[in-house]
Every structure is written in structure tokens, then in C-alpha cells.
């Protein structure tokens, strides 16, 4: 027994000797208590709900203009429809970052904005009147399909030439009916999402506090990050060629046929910044993730993390805004500015995906462990 006791004493003594790496430390991590309900209320009432509401009315307008056009296809109704399309596509950029809850239920993002569109699939669908979209992962639906049907279907952006497809082409009725089907699918999905948010989801969203997976905070941060990365990769990265050995792929831009890629990208980036700041569409700055960061007093490279993030947003927005539309033509001409914009966008990822969750002490469940941990 004595030997055993000696052993214990030795082991215990030894272990305390091993206490190491003491340092005169910075701020205590995870020490703040921020008001999550205030954040959720602001984000829901001033950002998410208005975004969906705006998207919903834009999509309803799109639907009306589509019916007008299909009933009387003229250059005038086509032009109005094109405008309605652009408006709806722009307002989608604000709503794309909330792919959880109601949006996730209907696969909103994939249903509305899988791009680049698969043209041969669309033409096949038209020919065979395959007008149902029950698979969310196809590339023959949503805004990219409309982009093609309204701007590229005749191989020219020219209004009169496009119009002929709906007035003179032997398949004109089939084109009209496919156009209708695409729009009504968008409308159904957006309606459903908007309805769920306004009827019940808003309240449960605000109530779901905490930092675990599935709480509103993790949904906001995950949705925000996921959308940012998709933006980076699909809107800028792929077409610029940085992901494919510097072979630019200009036809893979978002909105290739209508040529509004840059405007959409700027809108998306601004939406991302506004969600971070907690800012509504009119520029009123409410409680956002930036306020949380200020409270924990996190520093990076001698600046506050908040300042780092805001500055990086500014650089990224500047760089993207400098890319003239149509982006595909800019890239064909010289991809360098797009690559530079990509680099600015990329620098932000570590700030918002790794640093922000870390200092807010949210172990991000961006990726669920498929198995146990220890």
C-alpha cells in the first residue's frame, strides 16, 4: 500500500509540474452575454421579412408580366417582362442568404438559381413539354432558365429576334408554356417561403436562442457564410478561371444572356454586408453581428475584427463594382480585374467563417459530424 501511495504522490506531483504555457493573457474568451433576441428580431423584421416580401412582390409582378407576354407577345410586353425579370433576379440576391427553415424546405436556392443553365436540357424540356420541376438539383429552371428564355433563346439579345421565338417559331406554344411553367414554379416556391415566414416562422426564429446547431444564431451565421462562399465560387471564381488553371469560363457567369452579372454580384455582396451590420434596405443600422463582435472586443492584426471585416467588405465591393457588365465580355477581354476581385472576396472568408464564430464562441456546425467525437 505504501508503494501505491508513493506512486500516487509522484504522479500527482509530476502532473502539476507539467502545467505549462502560462501567459499574461489578453481578453477572456467567451465572456460576453449579448442579447440574441434583439439580434434575431432586427434580422427577422428588418432584413429577412422585407427581403422576402420584396422578392415576393417582384416575383408576382414577373408572373403578371409573363401572362401579359404570353397572351400578347409583342416587343413591348417582352421588354416589360425582361425588366420584371431583372428586378426579381436582383431582389433574389437579398433573399439568397437565408437558406434555412422555410427556404430550405422548398430548396429555394437551388430551385431559383442553379446556374449556369443547362441549355440542351431546357430545349429538350421545351420540345417534350416536360414542364414540372420536382427535382431541385437540375439546371433547367429558375432565373437562369428565364435568363436564357428571355435573352438568349434566339442566339441574340435583340428584342425582335427573341420575340420571333414566341411568335413565329413552330414550337412557339411550347416555349410559352415552358416559360409559364418556370415562372409559376418560382412563384410557388417564393410564395410558400414568404407565407411561412410571416405566418409562424418569424416567431419561432426569434425564440430559438442559444449557440447549438439549429439555433437561429447558427442558422444566420451558417446561411450567411454558405451564401458568401457560393457567391465567391460561382459568380466570380468559376468564370474567372482561378479554379480551372487560369482558363476563363466566361459563359458560366450568372445571368450570362441578360448580361447583368456584375450588378447581381454587387447586390449580393451588399446584402451580405447589410446582414452583418444588421442594416435594413433603407440604410438604418440596427443590431447585427458587428455589435456582437464589438462586445467581445476581438482583435486581429492590431485592429478590431469588426474593422477588419468592414474594410474587407469595402475592398471586395469596390473590386466587384469595378467589373463592367456584361461580366462575360469583361472576362473575355481581360480576366485580371475579375481575378483581383476574386482575391478580395476570398480574403474575407477567414474573417467571417473562422474568426467570427471562434471569438463569438460558437462552435460552428457548418459541417455536422457524421459520427461521434471525443
Amino acid at each position: 500500500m505504501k508503494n501505491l501511495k508513493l506512486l500516487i504522490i509522484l504522479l500527482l506531483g509530476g502532473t502539476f509540474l507539467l502545467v505549462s504555457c502560462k501567459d499574461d493573457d489578453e481578453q477572456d474568451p467567451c465572456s460576453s452575454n449579448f442579447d440574441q433576441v434583439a439580434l434575431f428580431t432586427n434580422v427577422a423584421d428588418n432584413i429577412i421579412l422585407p427581403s422576402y416580401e420584396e422578392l415576393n412582390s417582384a416575383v408576382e409582378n414577373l408572373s403578371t408580366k409573363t401572362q401579359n407576354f404570353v397572351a400578347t407577345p409583342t416587343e413591348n410586353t417582352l421588354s416589360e417582362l425582361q425588366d420584371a425579370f431583372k428586378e426579381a433576379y436582383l431582389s433574389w440576391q437579398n433573399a439568397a442568404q437565408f437558406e434555412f427553415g422555410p427556404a430550405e424546405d422548398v430548396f429555394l436556392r437551388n430551385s431559383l438559381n442553379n446556374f449556369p443553365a443547362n441549355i440542351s436540357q431546357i430545349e429538350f424540356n421545351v420540345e417534350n413539354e416536360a414542364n414540372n420541376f420536382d427535382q431541385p438539383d437540375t439546371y433547367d429552371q429558375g432565373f437562369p432558365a428565364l435568363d436564357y428564355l428571355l435573352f438568349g433563346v434566339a442566339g441574340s439579345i435583340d428584342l425582335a429576334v427573341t420575340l420571333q421565338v414566341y411568335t413565329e417559331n413552330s414550337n412557339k406554344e411550347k416555349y410559352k408554356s415552358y416559360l409559364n411553367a418556370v415562372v409559376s414554379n418560382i412563384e410557388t416556391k417564393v410564395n410558400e417561403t414568404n407565407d411561412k415566414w410571416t405566418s409562424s416562422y418569424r416567431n419561432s426564429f426569434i425564440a430559438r436562442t442559444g449557440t447549438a446547431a439549429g439555433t437561429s444564431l447558427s442558422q444566420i451565421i451558417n446561411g450567411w457564410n454558405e451564401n458568401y462562399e457560393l457567391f465567391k465560387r460561382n459568380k466570380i471564381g468559376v468564370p474567372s478561371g482561378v479554379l480551372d488553371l487560369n482558363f476563363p469560363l466566361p459563359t458560366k457567369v450568372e445571368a450570362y444572356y441578360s448580361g447583368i452579372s456584375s450588378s447581381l454580384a454587387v447586390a449580393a455582396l451588399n446584402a451580405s454586408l447589410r446582414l452583418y451590420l444588421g442594416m435594413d434596405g433603407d440604410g438604418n443600422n440596427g443590431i447585427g453581428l458587428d455589435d456582437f463582435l464589438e462586445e467581445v472586443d476581438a482583435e486581429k492584426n492590431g485592429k478590431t475584427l469588426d474593422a477588419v471585416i468592414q474594410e474587407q467588405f469595402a475592398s471586395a465591393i469596390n473590386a466587384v463594382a469595378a467589373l463592367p457588365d456584361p461580366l462575360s465580355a469583361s472576362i473575355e477581354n481581360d480576366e485580371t480585374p475579375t481575378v483581383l476581385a476574386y482575391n478580395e472576396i476570398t480574403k474575407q472568408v477567414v474573417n467571417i467563417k473562422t474568426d467570427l464564430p471562434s471569438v463569438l464562441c460558437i462552435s460552428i456546425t457548418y459541417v455536422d459530424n457524421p459520427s461521434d467525437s471525443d
Partner: protein
Amino acid sequence: MTSGFLEKIGWRFIDSPVGIAPLVRFRILFGGLMMLGAIRFIEEGWVEKLYLEPRYFFKFYWFEWVRPFDESGMYLLFFTIIGSAAMVMLGFLYRIAIIMFFVSFTYLELIDATNYLNHHYLVCVLAFLLIFLPANKSHSVDVLLWKNLKATQVPSWTINILILQLTIVYTFAGIAKLNYDWIFHAMPLAVWLPERQDLPILGYFFQFKWVAFLMSWAGAFYDLTIAYFLMNTRTRPFAYFLVIIFHLMTWLLFNIGLFPWIMIVSTLIFFPSKSLENNFNEKLSTVQLTARWKVRSIKKQVIIPFLLVFMLLQITIPLRHFLYPSNVFWSEEGYRFSWRVMLVEKSGQATFTLRDPETNRQTEIINSRYLTAFQEKQMSIQPDFILQFAHYLEYEYRRTHGIENPIITVDSHVAINGRVSQQFIDPTVNLAELKDSFFPKKWILEIKK
């Protein structure tokens, strides 16, 4: 030190006959638990997720030759594990069964280092030890078949070696907790506990920082001392009660699968059968001891020294990080196989760039084209995985693009325990030219405080 002393120790801890009950109990519970664990693994769909979906698998150093099987092969491996675990439980062809279990389970663990878990390693170690232990000499099918196999007593080392192994696990888990963040910042529990505020009653307390501190300190104290309290006859019942409470807590709080049950079941080995107590009190003269100790057998000459070396390795392996100049939490050099359990909250990202020096064309890599989300997450914080993945990219681009000598760099950032991230790997170094080894990885940047 006299030889009499050594002989007494030898007799006491190695040779003295003790009741077989703890060993038999251990065999039955361990086999049963492993069987259920493997069934659960299949039911959760993890065979598909972890072994059939990935197109690339991270390797353990020295075990690069381990390959996954196809679907039927993987299921066959799992059925082997389940079947052999059941045979171990029943004590049917025990020696063959436990070897089959050890080999199949260890092979499974070696397929993808992404899935490394301390408690899976513990299972490998315990199974390895069980190969040498006469755990089938009572309450087993083997005894029904071969009557003369039956024994009521076994030499004490066969039980003590398991006690020693568990003591090593707890003690090193405790030592690992004696780090600055754990003790003075209650990290990472300060991140993890608030996530469980939805738990009834207990959850309420998790919002308070002092609870994280209390649990950090209590956890460290528990790990450091519990094995010794379990050894002591008087404190043993209460200590075992604490074992149950502690591991049920971890089971409740964390997604750690079988670990709590393994520990709750394994620590029963500390409870001797009544006859052990009697033998402890057996007074033998030095002459008698020497006589018994001098009885030579193959066991004493080969197996016991071999297991002694094994146990020495068990003690030195967790200490190997001292040979590396880096911070073990940051660089993970010497992190695995060291009972560093639930110790750090870490996240990161790694963006690879591959350049063809001949054409000067370069490409950023989309990791998700090659890795599952879980693999990518694990890769971004473990340097050896980062290197392995770079080599895989080299292979892939040679195969698909004919690029002969690509230059592969990584822009990687890792955040630890609630801090902002820092650059992890030297972004200028060409990973394609590096080889993994046990030597310090100089291309891991130092952590700045």
C-alpha cells in the same frame, strides 16, 4: 533495493493468484458492448457516410497501405467485428475470436485517419491486451467444450495490466487538461456547455461561466485521481459512483458515442473478486516468494516482458510531444494516441493553390470536389492531413492534366479556443516537395499568443 523487494512486487502484481471474476466480467461486457457498438454504427448509416462516400482516405503514418473495401467488403468487415465480438462475449473459441476482433477493428480504424477517436484507439489497445489474457477460463462456451480449461484463479498480472492501462488513460487525460486554457479560461467547456442550454434543469446552469470553470476543474481532478481512488478498497465504491456520474454527464453533454459506456464497463476491473482480497493477505516468507518467483515458464520469459515493453510504450507515447518544439495543441505533433480527449475547440480552413511551373498556370482547389465535408473540416486543422491532401492533388493533376511537377501551396488559418485565427502552414512552402516523417514539421508556423 534488495532482490527480496523486487520479488515481493513481482509476486504481488504479477504472480499471485487472484479470482478470475473481474477478468471474465470484463470479457463479457467488453465483447457485448463492442458488438452493440458495431451494430449501432451500421444502423446510423455511418458505413456509407464514412467509408463508402469518400473518394479519398487519409492515412496513418506507416499504414498507408491500408485500403478500404467496396460495399460488400466493408459490410463483411463489420460483420466480422460483430461476430468476433459476440464470440468474445460468449467465450467461444476465445483466442481466435479476440484476435479476429482486434485485427478487424484495428483495420477499420486504419482505413481513414479522419475518423480517429481516442476511444476507438482505446478499444484497439484493450483488445490487443485481451489477446494475452485467459479471460475465457470461466463462464464461457470454451469451458463447456473443454472442461479442463476451467480456472477460478488467474495470475494477478492478467487483471493488473488492464488496471494499469485504464490508469494510464485517465492520468494522461488529466495531465492533458492541465493547460492554460483549460484551467484559467475554462476552455473549451465555455464554448461547449452553452450549446446545451436546452437540457432540462442542468441546461439552465450552462449559461454561467463559473459552471464551465467548476466543470473544467472537477474534470481535471477526476481524471487525475479517479484511478487511484478506484484502487483503494475503502474509496472504491464511492469512486465508482463518481465514474458513473462523470461518464453519464459526458454522455448527456457531448456526442461521444460509446466512450462513456466503455469507461463505465471497463472500470469494473478495479473490483476484485473476494478471493483476491484473501490472497492479498496471504503472508509468504521471502524464501517462499523467491521459490515461486523462480518458477520459469514461457509466459514469464516471453509474454510478460513483451507486455511490459508494450506498457512502457503506452506511457512514453503520450509524452512524445515533448520531443517536438511546437505547441501540441496547435501543431498536433504528438497529439494522437495520447488520451487528449475533448480538449480543444478548433476550426480552420485550408485553400490550396496548384501551379504548373512549365506553363505558369495555376488553380485554386475546391476541396469539396475530393473530400467530404467532414474530411475537409478535419484536414484543415491537421498538418499531416494537409500534406497528404497536397500529395493527392499532385497525383490527381498529374493523372488528369499531365502536370509533372506542380507547386502546391496552402493558405491555411486555424482558430483555437475562442481566439482569432492565425496562419497555420507556411504559405510559401511547396507541399509537393515535402515528405511526412516523425521529425518536427518546420513548415508549421508557430502560434503567436
